[in-house]
């Protein structure tokens, strides 16, 4: 069995789905951030897969992946800081407690 682009894409899609599932269902805010990281990793898998199979010469996808990693790190830093800020006020990181807009 030869490695094909489709497998990468399917793996990335599966990872994306798992990330979405975690993003929607997690009650812990940190797990939500972790799920976002999964999503971004799924995206990176796509980018690298495409650059490997479709653009092996210029490999622009890999450059994009480096940027995504950078921005993901920055986003995680900001995200954790926001969660910390909320925790200091609300004394909890349960997502279902953050419902100021409830009807």
């Amino acid at each position: 069995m030869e490695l094909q682009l489709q497998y990468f894409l399917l793996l990335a899609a599966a990872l994306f789905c798992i990330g979405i599932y975690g993003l929607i269902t997690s009650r812990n805010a940190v797990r939500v951030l972790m799920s976002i990281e999964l999503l971004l990793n799924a995206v990176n898998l796509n980018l690298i897969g495409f650059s490997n199979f479709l653009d092996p010469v210029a490999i622009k996808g890999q450059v994009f992946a480096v940027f995504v990693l950078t921005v993901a790190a920055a986003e995680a830093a900001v995200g954790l800081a926001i969660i910390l800020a909320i925790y200091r006020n609300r004394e909890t990181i349960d997502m279902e407690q953050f419902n100021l807009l409830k009807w």
Partner: protein
Amino acid sequence: MTHLFSQTVWLVPCYALIGAILAIPWSPGFIRRTGPRPAGYVSIFMTLLAFLHSLLALKEVWHQAPEYLSFSWLHAAGLNITLDLEVSAVTVGAAALITGLNLLTQIYAIAYLEMDWGWARFYSLVALFEAGMCLLVLCNSLFFSYVVLEILTLGTYLIVGMWYNQPLVVTGARDAFLTKRVGDLVLLMAVVALLPIAGTWNYTELAQWAQTANLDPKVATFLTLALIAGPIAKCAQFPLHLWLDEAMEGPYPATILRNTVIVETGAWVLIKLQPVLQLSPVASQVIIWVGAVTAIGASLISIAQIDIKRVLSYLVSAYMGLVFIAVGTGQTQTALILIFTYTIAMSLLVMSTGGIVLNNISQNLTQYGGLWSRRPISGICLLVGAGSLVALPPLGNFWALVEMGDFLWKTQPVLFGVLLAVNGLCAFSLARLFGLMFGGKPTDITLRSPEGLWLLVLPMVGVMGFTLHVPLLLLQWQLLPDLSTLNPSVIFLLVFLTLDGFALGSIVYLNENWQKPVRFGPQFLQDFFAYDLYTEKLYKVTIVLLVGIVSKAVYWFDRFIVDGFVNLVGLATVLGGQSLRYNISGQTQFYVLSILLGVSLLLFAIAVPLLNLSF
């Protein structure tokens, strides 16, 4: 200058109308200090003017060909409505009769309404009636006849409802208005339908048109049936007769007018329309049989009444039934004479009983008796009125009835039988009225019964004098039938039945030994006639019930279906808002899910056309 009065005969209704308006300020709410009497005097003065004017006009148009006056009332595109007046001996004579009777009635009312404060209302309404009736007899246009009939229907409502603090008055006025209104509305259908067919509303032109008209028999039948519906209600014919019974709750002086001239407004229109009614044989039959059934039924009902006014009101229906028979068989001339003689006789009857009711309070015949020695003038007036109402030579109605009987004898013997029966029954009813009131021993309420004020007696005696002169007047006007050409057996039978009725009534009711209250036949039959064939119940279980159910159903439909549907839209919106807000769950992750779903659906929608799906 020779025709000054006949050319200005249109002033006759105007006098009365001015009188009606001038009487209003003496309503208790406007002139508070001086009492209501001037209202009556003003109205009487204006009536006197109208009476003199019509008499002078009558003198001018006597033996003259009819003149026609025309005023344009409305001119719209394609429709030209003119107020046509006919100035002939008949119309002006009718106006003189109306104003003369009004004059006497209004004088009578001065005495009758002595203890009443509502003179302004009474006199202005009576004057309104006078104006309406004068215009009705003068106008030569079906359209304006209808207009006047409607105004008089409203007038009836108001004048029957004069003493509106009495509950029976309120229901009586309601029934009088609605019943007459129904007839008028059906008449309106015919009036509206007649214009495109005949092209005119002028009676003279309608008569000319009817001679050569070639109508589809169905159209002619429906048209003529609708035309007679108005007079049926106006003349209190079966089955629209209950209103006249209930209208007896109104003031007595107004009853004089109602029983004589107001019910004849319908008969007048019927007579005027006779050429058109000839278009359909069905309509003639309907007129004849409505009249015949009413005449027989109402005279039987009249015998079974214990209320003085109602005894007379059913006789009104009966005699209007005879007029219907006359019109149905084509005897318009006889119908006019019958109306003339009947009017005089009936007004005398109502006037004479009114004076008695005024100072004996009760209208209940069973409580009366023994008035003859105390009230001779009223008694004589009642006798003269009774004699001249039935076929008793040489008094008034004899001539009209004999002429009518002779015609019916030759053409429709069954109807002659009806005429004989009605004549006999009416004679019996009148003898019963006289016997119960004037015969026998005085009762508690008649023990002290003085003759009325001179204002009450004067008009009554005046009418009596006129009644006695009616045959002479007819002779003078050459309106008497030629006795030599008439069938002697007709005369004999009519007079025999009259005398029979009088004799039988006298035997039963003037006889002290006859058990009172009198029992004829089975009790249920007596009750059947005493309760007016249960007409009130009949109305209640048929038309009133039907209209009541339909209106309730329509109300329910409006209230719950139509209104409910609109409310449902509002309610659904409110509920939608109330329930859809739960979409705002307050969960950040739910919002994220919504965004993701939205994005994926959008992408799917974009992608589907590109996928080139081919199955």
